[in-house]
């Protein structure tokens, strides 16, 4: 068996569990507040829907607002249809499917857009991340937890499409620098670290 030998899927499983719990509890609370008898099939559908969106959000953390809206909108429509059919034995209406999808999509996409805006507008001091890079260290030195804003880009153009890949595959990789703090490799990772308010680990590769 070699299901997840590198432990790469735990965050997805965690997202699914948390999403499922949230979806299930929200359904129970919603029904209770509405004065209804708890319909456990509806709770199950909501939990499954929450697990799905939780897993997707955990798997693709860098997803943009539009993509988030589309994913949550689609899941919202499917959840409505499944609830109508499975929990209440009714045929879902087209208007209901559209309304659920649009409401879920706009709310989730909007929340994501606002979240991204807040993260991007915060300065490093807001997050209090990292120590300044110490210049002049010998080749081979590793400095853990460096404020990414104290590193110097070497004028390379950032390519937007690469930011997401760098976030997905290179988030935890060290940034390689010259001893004066000019970045040798890892520009996109540093840009992501600044955007999301994280420190980076730095390896002095050259003098």
């Amino acid at each position, binding site marked *: 068996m070699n299901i997840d030998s590198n432990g790469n899927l735990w965050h997805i499983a965690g997202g699914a569990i948390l999403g499922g719990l949230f979806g299930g509890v929200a359904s129970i609370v919603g029904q209770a507040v509405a004065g209804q008898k708890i319909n456990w099939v509806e709770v199950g559908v909501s939990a499954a829907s929450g697990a799905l969106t939780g897993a997707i959000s955990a798997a693709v953390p860098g997803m943009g607002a539009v993509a988030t809206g589309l994913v949550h909108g689609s899941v919202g429509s499917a959840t409505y249809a499944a609830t109508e059919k499975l929990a209440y034995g009714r045929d879902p209406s087209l208007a209901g499917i559209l309304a659920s999808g649009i409401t879920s999509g706009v709310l989730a996409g909007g929340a994501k857009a606002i979240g991204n805006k807040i993260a991007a507008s915060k300065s490093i001091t807001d997050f209090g991340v990292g120590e300044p890079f110490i210049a002049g260290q010998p080749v081979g030195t590793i400095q853990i937890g460096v404020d990414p804003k104290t590193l110097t880009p070497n004028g*390379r153009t950032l*390519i937007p*499409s*690469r930011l*997401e*890949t760098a976030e*997905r*595959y*290179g988030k935890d990789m060290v940034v*390689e620098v010259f001893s004066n703090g000019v970045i*040798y*490799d890892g520009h996109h990772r540093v840009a992501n670290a600044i955007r999301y308010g994280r420190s980076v680990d730095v390896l002095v590769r*050259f*003098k």
Partner: protein
Amino acid sequence: MISIYDLYDMGAIFKLIRLEINYEKNIDILRQINEVLLNQSSYESNQIRRAVANITNLNHENWGFVYKENTYVYDDFVRNKAIINILNKVCDELIVTLESKKYNIAYDLIDTIHCLPIIIANNHFSIPKSYWKSHIKYYRKKWNKSFLKSEQKSIYRN
């Protein structure tokens, strides 16, 4: 046959080529890599760095690592010939571009593929589909629409 450590070495080499794109030895270095890639019948530890170390008068300050051999106690190999073919084609394209002294194109190309060996190594010897969108698409749009098109198809055929 190449191992996971050869992929890491290739990643380091590609980054060094990007650092100094008009370095006179870049073409020789890429030819040496291609020779190792094309030899699928045998394997020896440190074969990529050893092949590069055979080049005379390399700049030791940057290329010092190729003269140091590591002892590995575990190896894992790239068995997918389509992956080897892609790495080989990438080196070929770089050689042709450098030979024609089109350094701006060569820079974009090496910048596009410098992380490819590491991505392959860290992805169980496969190339995630997102890589083509995030990296190769940009190069195709700017310089060569057909770059690695058929190779991309062949890799997901099996």
